[in-house]
C-alpha cells in the first residue's frame, strides 16, 4: 500500500467518505470531522504510519491537504 493509499484510507475509515471528495475535506467542514473525529483520524494516522504526532502538529491538521504537509514533518511523503 502506498503512502497516499494509507493516507486516504485513514480518511475513508474515519469519516466514511468516498475518495473523490477527500481533497475538499476540512476540519468542521463536515459533521463527522469534529473534535472526536479529529482524534479518531489522528489515531488512525499513527497506526497506519507507525508514528507519534506531537500535539501541536495534531492541531495543525485542519484539512486533507494540510495533513499531507504535517505528515511530511515525520518523513512521510504523500503524493
Amino acid at each position, binding site marked *: 500500500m502506498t503512502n497516499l493509499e494509507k493516507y486516504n484510507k485513514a480518511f475513508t475509515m474515519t469519516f466514511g467518505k468516498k475518495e473523490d471528495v477527500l481533497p475538499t475535506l476540512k476540519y468542521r467542514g463536515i459533521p463527522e470531522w469534529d*473534535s*472526536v473525529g*479529529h*482524534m*479518531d483520524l489522528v*489515531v488512525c494516522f*499513527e497506526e497506519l504510519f507507525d508514528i507519534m504526532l506531537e*500535539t501541536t502538529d495534531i492541531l495543525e491538521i485542519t484539512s486533507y491537504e494540510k495533513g499531507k504537509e504535517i505528515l511530511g514533518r515525520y518523513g512521510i511523503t504523500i503524493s
Partner: protein
Amino acid sequence: MELQFHKIAPNKTYNIHVLVDELTSSNCYIIEKDNYAIIIDPNNGPKIKSFLELKNLTPEVILLTHEHCDHMQGLEYLREVYDVKLITNIECSYGIQNTRQNMSRIMETYLYFKNKQEKITPYKPFSCKESDITFKDSFDFEFHNLSLKIVSCPGHTSGSECITLNNEAFFSGDYLIKDEPVITRLPSGNLNDYNLKTKPYLKGLPIGLKIYPGHGCSFIFSKEVMEEHELY
C-alpha cells in the same frame, strides 16, 4: 491538600463517596463498607490515598467502567501502594495496556478541545498492567455482604462495563451522562455493539435506580432519563 470527596449516598450499611478530577472532570467513586473500600475509576492516586487514610479505609478491590485514561490515571499508583485486586473484563484489561486505546496518547488533544481551545495541557501517555481478575460477559461477587454485578457493555469502548451495587446503585461510566450523547467513535468504540448489546441492557434498568455516571452528578433513573438517552 484539600480533599474534594463528598459523601453522596449515606446508607445504613455502606457509603458512596465521589472525587471529581479537576483536569478531566471524571468521577471516582469509593464504596465504603465497614473499614474496607472498593474504588471505581481511580482518577487521582494521591488524593484517593489521602482520603482512604483519613477515613481509615483499606481498599481491596478496584473496578473500572472502561479503559480510558481519565478513569484510571491513578490506577498504577494505588496498585503500588495497596494490595488491591483489579477486576475488569478481558477487553478492558487489554485496553489499559495500550496508550492509544486508553486514550492517553491523544489526551492532550482531547483536553485542548475540552478547554475550548485555549491552551495545551501537558499529559504524559501511560499504560497499566493487565487486570488481576478478568471475565468475558459478567462477573458477580460479594464484598463484605454487599452484592456487586459487573456487566460488559461495549459501545463507547470495547472494554466498557457497568456496575450494579445491591440492586440500588448503578455506576454507568460514560453512558447515561446528562446532556451527552454516547460517543462510539473513539478507538475500540462501536455503534453496533452499543445498539445491539448495551442499549437493550440499559433499557432494562428499573425506574428509581440511582445512577452514578462517570462525569457529572448522580441522578435517579426515570422515564425522562430514558427518553433523553433514547432508551425506548
